[in-house]
């Protein structure tokens, strides 16, 4: 029992003595546990289930968990590396390895208890706030109850207990596999002079370049999806080589140039940088990649969120859109009359038209030569609709048509519909905004709008019908009735629901969508994506900050002796500080600069990806990308100021 007390005391003093390493570790793990606990709690909350977010949140809780594993293991390995000397000393002083293992076990238990208690405590405190944020993000009007159960606490304890246990096992392996003499001298192992590996340097440039090129090359969202992971992998590996080999190769070249190298400022900086790059290259590459992840995650999700309204507006310009399937002019008129009889909601800017939208082979309409693609999204419409919307007065004969197309070379040629032929009388350069939206454009499919006097007859003549489920040979067209309304959103939503359920007995397979509901649905999805994005971004940020901090601390210890020698050899304190400062600055901001470069080159690729989600506003995306990058740079700079204060504190304390 007294032994246990002694171990506890040792474990506690160890942690206190290493506060510079332990405090950030505890803070970061507390934050991660808090985040995991909150998102787990929300995913299990019945209120969230009622707004259909449980699955999304559950997914988020897994992601947070996975990254937490990676980060905690990484930080733990770093901590233990710094402490090998201490373990060696214990060993030399007569503690055997099981005893050291016991002390480390207690340390692990202590830090686990502190982090879990803190995480759950702060998690409980902030949970309501986070819930409100989430509800706000998904534009949920009401307020939801939240239940604080024990289950999420248990889940968090389970997961993080497992993570800490694995971390302890890796430390154990380290303690048992190392000889005391190695433990003692581990951090003073002789440093090899950095050698330039030109092959790896070239590979680094080539891989990064290939990734950049691939990102510029993609032309459609589909290609972007395929290229994204390849490009990311290329650039990630390339970045690693850029930092490890290219940097040293460049410095070597500078060193070979005697006129440049043997100058007061260059001399110390070039060799110092070489040493630093060798020590920190992989850490810097990690920081760079994590920064890219933060930037891409946040800017994508924020842009998506900010662009939602605009996206929905483009999809559905009016407040209410009713569609019904009709097969003849008579049915159309009948349906219109029945629909307009409904006075539940007020109507302005009403527009009614029929359209037959069907995907077909270009050869089906005799336009096989018009483009490289074989398939197109074909719309058959009434020329009267076109004239009404544009104010033009195009007159067509019975077998004449007017055509608007995109991504095709259509001339004033003939088009065919079964055995009938229509001559293209008019090539339209513009299409009315109210009807020109087409999902096909986001899939990169060519679009053809064919306007005739009688869209019903033309549709009947076409070999491909819109409704494959129809058993007879009738060709159905969609009748659209769209309008704005000053009625309350709820009334609009109710009206549309009633129509879709055919409460009014209209017949004609009626469906109605209100923009209000569409927006609600979209915010539900996009809001929860943004929520997860913020969580992940926060997680990456914590990891970035922590890696930066540890890098600074470990460098501080190593630079201290160099700093003293330089002063003894005749560099003034101010000069030493200046040179060290410039090196630290470069090392610190290099990952940020490279990350920004990566993001710049990734822009086109990421933008293509965004269009797949329906966001087409480049300006909006650019704006949020810049805002995100700017905010990140500010946070980064603040981290720099804080950590460099720790760094200079270490430097200025004389080595014992």
């Amino acid at each position, binding site marked *: 029992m007294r032994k246990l007390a002694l171990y506890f005391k040792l474990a506690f003093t160890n942690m206190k003595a290493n506060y510079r390493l332990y405090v950030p570790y505890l803070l970061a793990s507390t934050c991660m546990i808090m985040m995991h606990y909150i998102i787990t709690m929300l995913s299990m909350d019945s209120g969230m289930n009622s707004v259909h977010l449980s699955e999304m949140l559950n997914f988020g809780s897994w992601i947070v968990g996975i990254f937490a594993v990676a980060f905690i293991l990484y930080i733990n390995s770093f901590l233990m590396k710094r402490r090998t000397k201490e373990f060696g000393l214990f060993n030399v002083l007569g503690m055997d390895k099981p005893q050291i293992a016991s002390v480390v076990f207690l340390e692990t238990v202590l830090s686990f208890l502190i982090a879990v208690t803190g995480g759950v405590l702060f998690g409980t405190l902030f949970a309501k706030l986070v819930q409100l944020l989430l509800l706000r993000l998904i534009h949920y009007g009401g307020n939801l109850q939240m239940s604080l159960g024990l289950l999420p606490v248990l889940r968090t304890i389970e997961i993080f207990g497992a993570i800490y246990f694995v971390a302890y096992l890796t430390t154990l392996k380290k303690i048992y596999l190392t000889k005391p003499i190695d433990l003692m001298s581990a951090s003073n192992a*002789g*440093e090899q*002079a950095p050698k330039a590996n030109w092959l790896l340097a070239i590979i680094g440039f080539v891989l990064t370049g290939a990734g950049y090129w691939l990102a510029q090359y993609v032309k459609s969202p589909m290609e972007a999806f395929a290229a994204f992971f390849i490009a990311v992998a290329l650039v990630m590996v390339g970045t690693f080589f850029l930092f490890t080999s290219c940097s040293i190769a460049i410095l070597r070249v500078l060193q070979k140039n*005697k*006129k440049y190298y*043997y*100058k*007061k400022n260059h*001399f110390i900086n070039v*060799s*110092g940088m*070489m*040493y630093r790059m060798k020590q920190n290259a992989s850490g810097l590459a990690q920081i760079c990649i994590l920064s890219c992840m933060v930037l891409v995650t946040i800017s994508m999700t924020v842009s998506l969120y900010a662009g939602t309204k605009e996206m929905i507006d483009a999809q559905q310009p009016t407040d209410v859109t009713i569609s019904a399937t009709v097969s003849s002019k008579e049915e159309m008129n009948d349906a219109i009359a029945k629909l307009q009889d409904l006075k539940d909601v007020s109507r302005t800017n009403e527009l009614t038209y029929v359209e037959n939208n069907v995907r077909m082979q270009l050869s089906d309409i005799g336009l096989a030569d018009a483009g490289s693609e074989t398939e197109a999204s074909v719309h058959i419409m009434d020329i009267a609709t076109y004239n009404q919307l544009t104010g033009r007065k195009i007159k067509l004969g019975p077998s004449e048509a007017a055509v608007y197309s995109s991504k095709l070379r259509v001339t004033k040629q003939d088009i065919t519909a079964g055995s009938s032929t229509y001559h293209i009388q008019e090539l339209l350069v513009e299409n009315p905004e109210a009807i020109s939206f087409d999902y096909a454009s986001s899939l990169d499919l060519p679009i053809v709008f064919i306007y005739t006097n009688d869209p019903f007859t033309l549709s009947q003549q076409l070999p491909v019908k819109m409704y494959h489920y129809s058993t007879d040979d009738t060709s159905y067209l969609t009748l659209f009735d769209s309008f704005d309304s000053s009625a309350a959103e709820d009334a609009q939503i109710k009206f549309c629901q009633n129509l879709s359920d055919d409460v009014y007995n209209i017949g004609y397979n009626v469906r109605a969508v209100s923009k209000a509901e569409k927006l609600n649905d979209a915010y539900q999805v996009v809001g929860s994506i943004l929520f997860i994005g913020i969580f992940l971004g926060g997680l990456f940020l914590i990891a970035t900050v922590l890696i930066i901090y540890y890098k600074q601390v470990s460098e501080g210890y190593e630079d201290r002796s*160099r700093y*003293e*020698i*330089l*002063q*003894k*050899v*005749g*560099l*003034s*304190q*101010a*000069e030493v500080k200046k040179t060290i400062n410039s090196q630290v600055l470069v090392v610190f901001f290099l990952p940020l600069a490279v990350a920004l470069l990566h993001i710049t080159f990734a822009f086109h690729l990421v933008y293509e990806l965004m269009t797949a989600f329906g966001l087409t506003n480049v300006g909006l995306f650019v704006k949020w990308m810049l805002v995100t990058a700017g905010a990140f740079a500010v946070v980064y700079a603040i981290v720099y100021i804080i950590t460099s204060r720790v760094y200079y504190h270490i430097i200025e304390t004389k080595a014992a």
Partner: protein
Amino acid sequence: MELLQVNNLRKVYVSRFGTNKVQALSNLSFSVEKGEYLAIMGESGSGKTTLLNILASLDKPTSGTVLLNGQDTTQISEKNISAYRRDNLGFVFQDFNLLDTFSIRDNIYLPLVLQGKRVEEMEKRLLPIAERLEIKDLLDKFPYEISGGQKQRAAAARALITNPQLVLADEPTGALDSRAAGHILKIFEEINQEGQTIVMVTHSARAASHASRVLFIKDGEVYHQLYRGNMSEEEFYERIQSTLTVVARGGELHA
């Protein structure tokens, strides 16, 4: 001609809250002739290190003056002190203080680069010194690749390459085995004979026996001094040893 003149040097260390005062140097005076090779001996706590730090202008005395060629180094401003140090003084330390980030060549070049010398000039100066100190083949190696004796010779080359007025050596043989120590002491003696003024602080009677004069300090004051004169190295060594015994006993000495 007197190169270095140390007058009534006093140094008092005050602990952070002023509660504890420790007098490291009480009233120390001596001078060094140009071309002399002076060894300063004393036990731990005698004030040797404090004295050397003040001579090196790394520390300031509480009172007293240090004149190098008539100029009071204790009055040089903080801004100019580093430049003054690298232009006039050369240092050899017990633990070599070579920078692990530099090759041996670059370590030796360091003070010249700081002085802003041209590459051609640096190369011209390095060659004879490297040959003199037998490190010509080590120039492209890094500190961790060579032995302690080789490191100390490299450090000596770094001290000498600026043609300093005065070389200050702090226990230069302290971290070396006897063979390497003998080698570096022989080299010190030779460069002294070529006209280089050297002040060396040491524990070792063997090291001191290579000097032309030995100063014994105790409790922050000059306690005694010995001139080598025409004595052989062995004879001088014996004299130093017996003097040290007397100093340690605290007896009276008359030279």
